[in-house]
């Protein structure tokens, strides 16, 4: 598969999406407010009561003429547990599902957290933070229009999660948004 633009067109065409749409850089995100000791989080499945900075979606699917390629995944934690706050630099287990298909399986992105000489990327200047990491994917993963998707994250030190801690997951990449190409 040559590049992300061609792959998105290929998958969309296979699924019968005929509108070309407006090409764009797409960022979607969802934030979960934790309970005390919560070690397992599910993203993009519950949008009730969240403000525009906690999520920019209303349902767990893209609109009928929208699709995207996930190129990188960022995870941000707001941890205030005492005496030891939870950390994204400890082992994690990330799974991403699109439709019924698992597209990221049992992935531990914690090696990209902070600068410990263990990052997956050759040039990883890093934020050197234990609560903010980004993972650049090696393959293009498509979220087609109108297909459910979700992400789950397990923290190995979930016992250190305090009530009202927050975890946000952000998918970034190339996308398409609706363009009528005509006047209404």
């Amino acid at each position: 598969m040559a590049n992300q633009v061609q792959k998105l067109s290929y998958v969309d065409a296979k699924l019968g999406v005929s509108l070309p749409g407006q090409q764009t850089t797409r960022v979607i995100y969802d934030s979960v407010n934790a309970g005390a000791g919560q070690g397992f989080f599910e993203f993009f499945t519950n949008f009730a009561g969240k403000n525009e900075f906690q999520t920019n979606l209303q349902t767990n699917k893209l609109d009928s003429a929208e699709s995207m390629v996930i190129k990188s995944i960022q995870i941000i934690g707001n941890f205030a547990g005492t005496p030891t706050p939870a950390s994204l630099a400890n082992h994690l287990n990330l799974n991403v599902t699109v439709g019924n298909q698992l597209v990221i399986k049992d992935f531990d992105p914690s090696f990209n957290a902070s600068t410990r000489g263990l990052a997956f990327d050759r040039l990883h200047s890093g934020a050197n933070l234990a609560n903010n990491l980004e993972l650049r994917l090696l393959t293009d993963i498509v979220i087609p229009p109108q297909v459910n998707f979700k992400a789950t994250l397990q923290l190995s030190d979930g016992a250190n999660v305090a009530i009202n801690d927050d975890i946000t997951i952000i998918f970034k990449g190339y996308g398409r948004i609706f363009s009528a190409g005509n006047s209404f």
Partner: protein
Amino acid sequence: MSAQDKMLHVANRLGLTSLKDMQGTTRMVYDSIPTVANTFTFFKGASQRAFPLTNVGANGNQFQVDEALLVEKIAFFIPSDATGVTYVGTNGFQAVKFDLVIGNKTVIKDATCEAAGEQAFYNDGNAPSFVIDLEGVGILIPPQVEYYVVAKPFNGITREASAQRLGCYLFGTGALLNFNTTI
């Protein structure tokens, strides 16, 4: 040759005709042994360990049908304690000598992951690298073939054995099972 090209080439040579239809992904497997030792065998017997010591699950040191990993990077880390929850990358000038074995074949032999290695092109802030990039495109671990890593930690300066806790990850382009049909 791209990573995907190599995966398909090897799969084709092995008669794995359906791998081309599987879901492409970015994949990593890791295993850690939080007991101080001079020699470690990672992934073999890992099904007996649980997260966060490893992420291989019940399948242990082989992938399911039509799942595979093209190993592009190998790294070693040091669990901070017996729980394996926290870990560090470097411990002084710790280095690791290792073999990677897939099936009956040793595919990386007597290699070392040197402390502060790859500094010519690897930048993880100011931290010395504990990662080794595989030259060429990488090495494919096919489905249902056992793999393991034998590793021996040593001091990179004095070149003497140095007992440690140790962990290892294999990172690269992967394939996940996708039926591509209704069942």
